[in-house]
């Protein structure tokens, strides 16, 4: 489920981006990193979309709360680290 949520959010974001700025859906793809072409507005859009999709699936988590951000270093560095971060939050959400 989580992979699909991230993929869907990135595909939606890609609709707003030019053809040469498309984000490849791969765990190694840099997100908020010096090698990335993802800017601030795009990252916020991605976070918002993922939070909404998670909420639709019954998981209400904030990806940017202080408490959650303290659980992992650089969660938005790559698509892979973002997935790891979401998994971590989902595991602590389901008690």
């Amino acid at each position, binding site marked *: 489920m989580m992979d699909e949520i991230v993929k869907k959010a990135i595909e939606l974001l890609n609709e*707003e981006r030019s053809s040469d700025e498309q984000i490849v859906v791969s765990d190694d793809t840099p997100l908020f990193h010096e090698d990335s072409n993802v800017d*601030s507005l795009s990252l*916020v859009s991605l976070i918002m979309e993922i939070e909404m999709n998670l909420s639709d699936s019954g998981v209400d988590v904030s990806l*940017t709360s202080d408490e959650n*951000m303290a659980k992992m270093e650089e969660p938005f560095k790559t698509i892979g680290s973002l997935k790891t971060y979401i998994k971590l939050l989902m595991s602590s959400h389901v008690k």
Partner: protein
Amino acid sequence: MSNIFEVELRLLELNDDVITFKWRNSIRAKLLNQGAKTVEEQRKWIDKSIKDDTQHNFIIRYKSIPVGMVSLLDIDKIKSAAQAGRLIIGEEEFCRGKQVVCDALILLYEHAFSTLNLKNVYGHIDKKNILMQKFHKFTGVKLFNESELFFDQNLFKNDYINIQISKTEYENVVKTKLLTLRKIGL
């Protein structure tokens, strides 16, 4: 105008003509209103805007390096309102991870609500600029595409997504959200 962060806003100067012209004509600024077509036109626009008390145009600087611009327009002390606009991060790659967007917005809002003591800041976003709309929504700024609930009907623009933020909303919601986002580096 500076803060504890490494970002500062300083008023636009004539010598900013070349760099602001470059930013205004970048692909990233394509959703802003049409700007000057030459550097000379840009310089004339800056000269005019410097003399206009109803607008404060700022260069965003990171560690003294110009990286973008942002403005407070149509400053109206009787209505106690002003329009936020012209946000451009011209040096996007350099700014990545340096909290420039959030800090610049915090400084702009502080200028409006604390320095000028205004009650409302509003703005108009191109309907195609989905990412900017989402950014403001995420930070708790209210978005309107109908005028009924907008704080001033005369300031509403039908062809745009209208945004509105009161001093109280800024202090209670938006500032906190922006400070949270800046921890990510936005």
